[in-house]
């Protein structure tokens, strides 16, 4: 019980981590059920109605209850350590955020216990489908309330991270000495603070529409709702991306034994990315005929510039390094290769004449699973494998970790690559049944989903086994560069017991090692 009430940011973050794994597994089981249904044309296992609940709750669970909280949970754990702070700013607010998020998730999922089942109006709950006549039932109300609570909880956690970066940096930790991951978290929290309140308000209005009416009515109501939703809905895509770029950046620098390449360019590109992210939401509405498509096409395509700089910096970090392929590095490389496919297909769908064909099809499903699953989840796993020794004091089983990487990479590509062809060939998303000619690719995709399930089980077994029989990690098992590796594993209640080293760059521990090396060289050059 004391663990549940503890305000230590590390314990709050651990709670967020456990809850997000729980919701990931739940939402993943829904996806496996969908892939089982889709393995063959026709209806085999579930009804149309059940299928609608499955994809609604799968998407909602993964976005509102897994990737967003997991990204913020990672920041909640690491940011105070990376900036040399003893605690998160406003620790009780962070804990309150966790409880709101958990309550929201349980509320959303409790819809399955009601007569009409859980919410089944897609993760975007488009008006008028989501109003009281389009989707009657308590399950949909629980979905709306659940989303509002979970998103509000995430917002509160993000605020504590933002405050920590602004107010609690150690002496010497200037803004241009923040570690790469902390910079990505700062950009993330900017987007959260600017966009999440809009969704909370939209959910409040949606509940009012369902029970009182008259909110989103007439010819403008449905379009107005989409504007509110996507004003949140696009920035959140980068909330589920930036922190994992940061995690990958830290892992790549450490396992290349080299300073992060182009640090200042990365900072500028992150800020440019953040600003643009607030101006691209209309690309979700290209086929509505209700927005100026050219404007959103221009802003969306421009995202290639900061994204390209980030790729250049990641690869530039490796070039000239001495690369060591431990498990976190493999997941980081998987992120780089696979997110690339998601990002480049994102440029394709930023062109309205191309989106007119692939919008609402499996091409889009393939595109965002390459970003969110093959990209973000691999980035998250890079982070989990990288920081697990710090958080627990125990190493993960390296061979099992590497094996799980290859299984997951195989599964992800077998599952999601065929979907590009399915969508191009005319298969819409959110259908339980499809034309028989699309059967073979769907079967392949379903087999891939099974492989992913095996990979996920391997990761879980590794986490549990490594906690059960601990292989001690030491303070800094990787030869890392940032302050979290200066303290013990796991860190003490107030994070640091020894005085902090001098902070003259984003990589203070690397500075120390380089200075020691220089001192050794001088001693060799000038023999006594």
């Amino acid at each position, binding site marked *: 019980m004391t663990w549940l009430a503890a305000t230590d940011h590390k314990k709050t973050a651990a709670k967020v981590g456990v809850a997000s794994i729980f919701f990931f597994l739940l939402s993943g089981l829904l996806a496996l059920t969908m892939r089982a249904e889709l393995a063959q044309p026709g209806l085999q296992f579930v009804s*149309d109605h059940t299928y*609608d609940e499955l994809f609604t709750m799968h998407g909602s669970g993964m976005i509102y209850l897994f990737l967003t909280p997991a990204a913020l949970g990672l920041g909640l754990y690491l940011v105070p350590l990376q900036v040399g702070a003893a605690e998160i700013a406003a620790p009780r607010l962070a804990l309150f955020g966790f409880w709101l998020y958990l309550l929201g998730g349980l509320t959303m999922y409790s819809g399955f216990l009601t007569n009409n089942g859980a919410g089944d109006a*897609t993760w975007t709950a*488009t008006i*008028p*489908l989501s109003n009281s006549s*389009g989707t009657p039932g308590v399950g949909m109300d629980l979905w709306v309330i659940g989303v509002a609570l979970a998103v509000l909880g995430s917002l509160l956690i993000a605020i504590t991270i933002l405050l920590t970066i602004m107010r609690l940096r150690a002496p010497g930790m200037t803004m241009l000495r923040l570690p790469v991951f902390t910079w990505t978290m700062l950009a993330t929290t900017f987007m959260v603070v600017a966009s999440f309140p809009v969704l909370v308000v939209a959910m409040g209005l949606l509940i009012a529409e369902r029970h009182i009416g008259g909110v989103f009515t007439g*010819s403008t109501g*449905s*379009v107005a709702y989409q504007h509110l939703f996507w004003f949140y809905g696009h920035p959140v895509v980068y909330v589920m991306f930036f922190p994992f770029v940061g995690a990958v950046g830290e892992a790549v620098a450490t396992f*290349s*034994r*080299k*300073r*992060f390449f*182009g*640090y*200042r*360019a990365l900072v500028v590109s992150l800020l440019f990315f953040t600003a643009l992210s607030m101006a691209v939401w209309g690309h979700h509405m290209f*086929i*509505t*005929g*209700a927005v100026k*498509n050219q404007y959103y*096409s*221009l802003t969306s*395509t421009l995202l*290639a*510039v900061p994204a*390209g*700089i980030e790729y*250049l910096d990641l*690869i530039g970090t*490796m*070039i*000239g*390094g*001495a*690369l*060591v392929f431990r498990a976190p590095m493999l997941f980081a490389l998987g992120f*780089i290769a696979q997110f*690339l*496919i998601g990002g480049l297909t994102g*440029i*394709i769908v930023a*062109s*309205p*004449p*191309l989106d*007119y*064909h692939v*919008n*609402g*099809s499996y091409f889009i499903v393939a595109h965002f699973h390459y970003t969110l699953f093959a990209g973000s989840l691999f980035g998250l796993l890079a982070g989990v494998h990288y920081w697990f020794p710090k958080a627990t004091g125990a190493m993960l089983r390296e061979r099992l970790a590497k094996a799980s990487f290859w299984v997951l990479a195989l599964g992800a590509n077998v599952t999601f690559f065929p979907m590009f062809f399915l969508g191009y*060939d*005319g298969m*819409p*998303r959110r259908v*339980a*049944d499809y034309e028989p000619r699309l059967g073979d690719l769907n079967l392949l995709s379903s087999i891939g989903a099974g492989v992913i399930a095996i990979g996920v089980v391997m990761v879980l077994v590794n986490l549990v086994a490594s906690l059960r029989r601990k292989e001690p990690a030491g303070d800094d098992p990787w030869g890392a560069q940032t302050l979290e590796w200066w303290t013990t594993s796991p860190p003490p209640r107030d994070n640091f017991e020894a005085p902090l080293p001098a902070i003259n760059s984003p990589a203070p521990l690397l500075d120390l090692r380089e200075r020691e090396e220089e001192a050794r060289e001088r001693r060799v050059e000038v023999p006594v």
Partner: protein
Amino acid sequence: MSGSTRSDFASVWSLYLWIGIGVAVLVLCAVLFAVVRYRDRPGRAPSRRAERTAVEVAATVLILAIVALLVFRTFHTEAREDDSSAAGAVRIDVDAFQWGWKFTYPGQGVTVIGNSVREPNFAVPAGRRVSFALTSSDVIHAMWIPGQRFKKDAIPGRTNHFDMEFEARGREPGLCSEFCGLRHSNMRFGVWVLSDASYERWLAAHR
């Protein structure tokens, strides 16, 4: 507007696809090069260089140039597809509903209606401009004809106008691509692309 949505799509698509594949190959080769060339070996000392402003600027300029090319082509095509004021076109009003379609030929006295149990088929003359006016009577649907590489939302209270030109004769399948409730999976329709003479006969038979 000249040319069909299908040919518009094809030209923009191949540009984007080949540039995308080119960039993907370039990036993956760079990663592979780094992984092979700079793997840790005894005696390898990692470089301490962490900035190359010239490279960052060059990359930015290169990407901006590609973005400019892509956006230029997109805008050019978008402007043509947005222009739906063709005179002398065949006009068809489409009303989507849960879960079916109603196709009306204004001034012709022809209406085709069908639902998820019996899907409707409407006809168009090959090679002629067809102007659609699309709306919905309940929730948001989308009218997608994959063979035309085109879709548009059907939004209650709004009417979306767009043109298509059907080249190849035969039947083109179409469907709803915006989730609209229980029978969304079965909300389909067909387009018969006919010669002028057959089209006139089809109209007469459906009056």
